[in-house]
């Protein structure tokens, strides 16, 4: 608990509920709430990330440039398996079910961090509380990967460097000189040809994918190109 306090903030109950967008937090995280939160006058939680990636799966062109950029700036290599955002596609499926973009949600309750036995996966206060892996502390137990509630899991096992890794909003990009993180640029956002990936500081609604898979086609030329905006 001491460690968690160092990575935590105190939120009033009111701000906590606001952060949760008034949604059924209990439904999403009910099983974990008692372990994290003092539901009294003050709620003690892992601080929210100061940034999130949103995607528009109806706008994605399936070029996987986001994956290539992610791998490139973090690892200095091209490897789709090491990308922290994953684009899945089926050539034979009809639109819009042919593509899905799966990015880390920077969950307000990060089950991955909770599962890490060595505190290698934390909400880093020096990087806007982005949930990230300190590879030096990772012992390769893969419990973070197993704990991720998403499918596919948003934590990757880096089989070459032999540690877990996840989206850090480009906070740590040894192979890109741009300032990243919540106050900087993200490689996937920067490279996407159609702006189908967006960064926001607003906490998305925390139920399902609703808050993370959004419509980014309304305010550019998409409709004028004869492409659907609904």
């Amino acid at each position, binding site marked *: 608990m001491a460690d968690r306090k160092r990575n935590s903030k105190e939120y009033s109950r009111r701000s906590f509920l606001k952060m949760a967008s008034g949604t059924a937090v209990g439904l999403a995280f009910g099983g974990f709430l008692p372990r994290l939160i003092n539901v009294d006058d003050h709620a003690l939680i892992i601080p929210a990330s100061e940034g999130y990636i949103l995607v528009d799966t*109806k*706008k*994605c*062109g*399936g*070029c*996987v*440039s986001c994956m*290539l*950029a992610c*791998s*490139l*700036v973090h690892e*200095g*290599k*091209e*490897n*789709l*398996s*090491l990308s922290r955002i*994953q684009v*899945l*596609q*089926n*050539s*034979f*499926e*009809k*639109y*819009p079910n*042919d*593509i*899905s973009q*799966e990015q880390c949600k920077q969950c307000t309750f990060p089950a991955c961090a909770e599962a890490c036995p060595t505190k290698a996966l934390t909400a880093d206060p020096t990087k806007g509380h982005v949930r990230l892996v300190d590879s030096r502390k990772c012992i*390769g137990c893969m419990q973070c990967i197993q704990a991720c509630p998403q*499918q*596919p*899991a948003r934590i990757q*096992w*880096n*089989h*070459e460097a*032999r540690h877990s890794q996840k989206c850090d909003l480009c906070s740590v990009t040894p*192979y*890109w*000189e741009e300032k990243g993180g919540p106050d900087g640029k993200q*490689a996937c956002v*920067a*490279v996407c*040809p*159609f*702006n189908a990936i967006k960064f926001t500081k607003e906490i998305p609604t925390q139920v399902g994918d609703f808050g993370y898979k959004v419509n980014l086609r309304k305010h*550019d*030329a*998409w409709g*004028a*190109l*004869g*492409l*659907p905006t609904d």
Partner: protein
Amino acid sequence: MYGYVGKILRVNLTTRKISTINTEDYKEWGGGHGMGSAIFWDLCPDKTVDGRDPRNVITIMTSPLSGTLVPAASGRTEVQGIGIQGHPIGWYTRSNFGGRFGAQLKYAGWDGIVLEGRADKPVWIDIRNGNVKIRDGGHLWGLDTWATQEEIWQEVSDGQGFGNWVEIDSWRDRGRTTQRPAVLTIGRVGELQSPLGCLIHDAGNGAGQGGFGGVFGSKNLKAISVIGTGSIDIAHPAMLMNARLWTREKYGFNVEAPAADVGSFNFPAGPGATPYLPPGIGQRPQGCTGCHKMCRGRSAGGGNESHCVDYLFYNNYDAAKHGQITHHLLQAADLVQKAGINVYQMQTGLIWLNHLYQQGILGPGKQIDCDLPFDQLGDYVFVERMVEQIEKQEGIGKYLFKGLAQAAIDLGRYEQDLRSGILPLQEWGYSHHYDARTEVEWGYGSLLGSRDCNDHDFNVCCYWTPSICALFGAEFPVSAAELAAIIAEKCVPYSDPLMADYSDEGIYKEPMAKLVQWHRHYSNYYKQSLLFCDWAYADFVNPYAEGKKGLTGEAEPKFFTAVTGIEQSFEEGIEIGRKIWNLDRAIWALQGRHRDQEVFADYIYEVGAQPGYTTYEIPYVMPVYENGQWQYKALSGRTLDRQKVEDWKTIYYKLEGWDPNTGRPTRRTLEGLGLKEVADELEKNGKLGA
């Protein structure tokens, strides 16, 4: 090595031996086509064998840029070997396809695949990282290209399915993937060794020209599947990332503020699928690995990944029958992809058959008996019936199955229909694509090569853009004089201020020979070997760029250096292209190529260019230099002069250092390129230019 992954997979289907070739041994050729030709030269001792002969060697090559962030250079794969489509000789030839296959091959640790021999029964090749197996393909034989891929996906996933991480090897040691295997396969016409057979990957990536689907069939090879979880090391990652963003900011399509880029479909173009689909249908643009422009799409109604001729072979029939493009077109596009059938031959075949039908020569009980339902031309059922007859070799299909040139010979129509142009096979039995009478660089490049060249470099800026602007009364993005200056500036080292002169006189002069020379060398290296996509490069005129000058010349070497760490100037790349072009030319010489064979079909010399009559062209408006000034001029109606074409060929051969009497490379030229052993081989076979 950076960019390359170090090994080329060598599979002998006869002996079932699987071995490797060191990429380093062929690195001087760049990748793709250059490596493929050099490997073919080394491993195919008798280059005169038929394409279906088990001694034919097929190469399927990537480039150092494959699987990387280089825009429109990551997803292409080059296929080479002796083809079976060309007429009268299949020629050593090439094809190329997009999608994910080349990238996955690199992630699996292979820079390419070399196929030799013939399996004794149907097989498929299963590549999972370094684990390569030749598997029984009996249960796949007879399946269409889509069903084959879905079946292989399930086998490779080993019951895990997709939509999650899939373990294909030891997860902890070799990683896992969310990606489906990339599968290259053939349909029924390929299995039956027809020259109409294509290689198909995913829904709509096809290597059609050359008849390599039929070559796969001759090798009893149904498919190759590859999935990889490995890395491609990049020499300068930050440089690559910055270069990608530089092209996006300065040259690429801007979805926030699209430029008014009338008639452009290369680097700066935006999504390209929309015009082919019925109005109102849900759709997305979709691209190959690493692409920035997404020229095709997937829709709610089908037609996934089809574009250009995949639709254009039938869109006018559909629209004429139904008043607009309908679902019939999407169904037809899906059908030809599933059948794995060459759509260019379908397009030309439809034109030809329809002419014969209109003339009362072809039809039920006619001189050419044919029961295709012409009253339903424009409906899906017509294409369905045509494909069915080809696959079953029944009705008119038993002729079409052999390819259009042979079909015309068998039906006694070859000479007269090539003379009138109702069977527009412009050169080597390949379908008329763009018109040699007007856009001469396309025709010359095809004639000097082995197939329809399919290189759109000048086609976009010199034909489509000015022609569309003229047709619709839009402003030309650059004047003819500005266009000529941009081309001359970028076409180093052969720059000539008059090289873009498409006038009646200019097309026979040395500047046009220099343009064709640059075109062949650029294409051989940058597009076919480094695998920059033809639908993006070269970029001469770009509406987003300063002075509207495209990125060609600056971007290609920048990306090559970022990925490989090799400092190589643009001109050095052109010189490698010249070397590759000469090696190909030497192979053709061994196959018997002589300048006397390098002539167009008679209609090119005898019938005026009639856009819309032969393919989906619109009236040609191109830059000309006449009376001391540049202008755009309508060129339709022009024929080529036989003697002047011959004179132009002599100019061209001399520029290349080839024997003007035979068109074959000389010892001096070959040795100057470091190809002494090639010269020796030509001399030994009596095919060396004098």
